[in-house]
């Protein structure tokens, strides 16, 4: 007798196992941890433009935004041996570092009462002057948001981060991030409509 025929068939759950999407930075994480110059160069070339755009939207000043990006990578050099995670964690770490730098810059400006829009000349002569600062309308629209709303708007629509990545940057839950994002998008849409 075949025992296999008597036994009830086990219901085996077939789960759809999909391979995790490999992040472009995954292969450089070990090199970063080992302080490899080549790994750092690769990470910089992959992340510099996104980080610069994020910082530019936060601060409105390109020169300061460039300094924020440099500072973030210097801090990564200092704490590279302690980093634990994959490529997504590394990306979130860099955005978080730039965000903290921008917050420090806000505090410094509030002490010295500096505003980038005050430095704009009435008549622009060179392209450098035009491109250094954010457009006044857009700057005013972003300034109408809170810091957290501005952060999630830029992370989502400029940096292209997912909800999970934004939650890592903000050190909060995805639910909280989506709540802030919804309010931010509504406010920004209203302000831009008024501006236009």
């Amino acid at each position, binding site marked *: 007798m075949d025992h296999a025929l008597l036994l009830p068939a086990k219901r085996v759950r077939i789960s759809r196992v999909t391979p995790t999407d490999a992040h472009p930075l995954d292969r450089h994480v070990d090199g970063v941890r080992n*302080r490899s*110059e080549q790994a*750092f*160069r690769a990470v*910089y*070339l992959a992340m*510099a*433009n996104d980080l*610069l*755009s994020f910082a*530019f*939207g936060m601060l409105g000043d*390109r020169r300061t*935004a*460039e300094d924020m*990006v*440099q500072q973030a*990578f*210097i801090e990564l*050099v*200092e704490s590279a041996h302690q980093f634990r995670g994959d490529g997504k964690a590394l990306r979130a770490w860099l955005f978080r570092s730039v965000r903290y730098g921008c917050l420090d810059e806000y505090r410094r400006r509030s002490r010295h009462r500096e505003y980038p829009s005050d430095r704009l000349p009435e008549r622009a002569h060179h392209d450098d002057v035009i*491109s250094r600062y*954010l*457009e006044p*309308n*857009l700057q005013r*629209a972003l300034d109408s948001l809170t810091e957290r709303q501005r952060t999630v*708007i*830029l992370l*989502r*629509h*400029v940096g*292209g981060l997912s909800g999970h990545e934004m939650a890592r940057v903000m050190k909060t839950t995805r639910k909280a991030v989506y709540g802030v994002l919804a309010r931010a*998008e509504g406010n*920004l*849409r209203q302000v*831009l409509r008024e501006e236009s």
Partner: protein
Amino acid sequence: MSQQFPELERVRVEMPDEVRDRHLASISRALHGKRTGRTRFRLLAIAAVLVLLLPVIALAAERTGPGDLLYPIRELVERVLPSGAPTTSGEPADSEDLLPPVHRDRSSVDRPRRDQEVEGSPRPEPVRETTPTTSQQQRDDRSDDHDRRDVTEVEDETTRPSSDEPGTSQTTLRPEAPPTREQRADRP
């Protein structure tokens, strides 16, 4: 690429080449030379701990004896410290000079030892006032002279000068103490 907010596309910028090269150079410098800052901080911390701990260890080692763990430190401290400093043996070279005048041994000033007297020198005479003194003063003088004598001296009543004979030398078995500077000054 945000489709909800096309205005935000103006926020997207690219890193200029010269800025990118400058950043990469600074990252390279940080990778190869950044440990010096941390190492310097650690060295400063160790130096601060040593500056605070070494005096405490030296104090703790003062009361140790041979065989104790900190005894080598005590030997090192005693070797390093100057010889004039007081040690546990209690025999400094010039400790008397370090003491304030009030604590000095006055016996060396008021009562010189017998071996300090020069042989053949005239027998010291007690200072007697030329003016006639009262009997009380004479008794006081006599008691002062008696106090200066050595305690082992056997008093001979016959040799004690009488109170009516001022200025006479005392024929005693032991010589009298030499007159002090004040007594010599009072002499005519």
